[in-house]
């Protein structure tokens, strides 16, 4: 039986939600790596890095002023009455991710935010119902991914980037 990864599962859920949303929808890991982005272009990776940075800075600010350690109920908004960014932290299979939307020219941002919150809740439910068989897969992949890499392999890798 094929194992379904977090990435595949998130994509399956979010692809179905896009039609009803007038927003760019994305999920990132807390270290700034893209799990899902409804827009795939040269900004995709940077969006995830900035989302992670914004969240971590906000979290550090709360900790600094109020010693607030529990932030899973928080959300982050940077918005006007028609455009903005909205972020939610959430847990999938024991790891923290951010679900976010960037929107512009939106008539009802309140409704959009509610829709994002509902998507988050739906995803959390889905992952609770069907936890990934992480331990079994992980145990087969102990040790290092590469035992040796030659300088010429690294040169070849970089030469592909025109370097």
């Amino acid at each position, binding site marked *: 039986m094929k194992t379904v990864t977090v990435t595949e599962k998130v994509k399956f859920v979010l692809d179905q939600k896009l039609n009803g949303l007038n927003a760019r929808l994305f999920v990132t890991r807390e270290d700034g790596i893209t799990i899902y982005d409804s827009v795939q272009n040269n900004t995709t990776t940077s969006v995830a890095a900035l989302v992670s940075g914004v969240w971590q800075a906000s979290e550090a600010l709360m900790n600094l002023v109020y010693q607030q350690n529990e932030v899973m109920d928080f959300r982050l908004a940077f918005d006007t009455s028609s455009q903005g960014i909205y972020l939610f932290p959430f847990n999938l299979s024991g790891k923290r991710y951010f679900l976010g939307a960037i929107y512009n020219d939106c008539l009802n941002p309140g409704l959009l935010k509610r829709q994002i919150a509902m998507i988050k809740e739906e995803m959390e439910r889905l992952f609770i119902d069907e936890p990934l068989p992480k331990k079994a897969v992980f145990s087969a992949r102990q040790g290092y991914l*590469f035992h040796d890499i030659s300088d010429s392999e690294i040169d*070849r890798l970089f030469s592909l*980037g*025109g370097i």
Partner: protein
Amino acid sequence: MSFVNYHTKEINCKIVYYGPGLGGKTTNIQYIYQKTSSQNKGQMITLNTENERTLFFDFLPLDLGEIRGFKTRFHLYTVPGQVFYEASRKLILRGVDGLVFVADSQVERMEANLESFQGLEKNLLEQGYDLAKVPLVMQWNKRDLPNIVSVEDLQHQLNKKKNPAFEAIASQGHGVFETLKMVSKSVLLNIKGGLE
């Protein structure tokens, strides 16, 4: 923490350029950005102050080719070097896979180099990392300037663990890719075989 997706055969790694203010961290990243072909790089992000000093971080995603069937993506970050941005530096170290310490070779910057290196050790510890276990490459930058410390002195004062080290003139590109290739190799060799 590197991210290996076995299903899509992708590797994502985070490399942080660390060092004292005005040492050349951003210059390294800018040179890499300029010299990388457009289809292999994402948008470079710089969060600067008005006078172009790094405020939070610079970020450059590099989408290189495949190594042994794995598509490889490096996320390059710089930290702000100025002393009072300590809180930002700590945040950027989270999830780090490899480090480049960019030291300023000028005699008058040795104290700043030492202070920054001690800060790196301390900040890593606070994030739960042991510097001895994180791939680290040293870069002795600004070798073209007068009044520079000898490489032997830099090694003695900043590189007691004998990590790989390169002389550099980042503004001209000398040593920039040698440093990046070395840290990339060290990071790839250090990836544990876990699942996303």
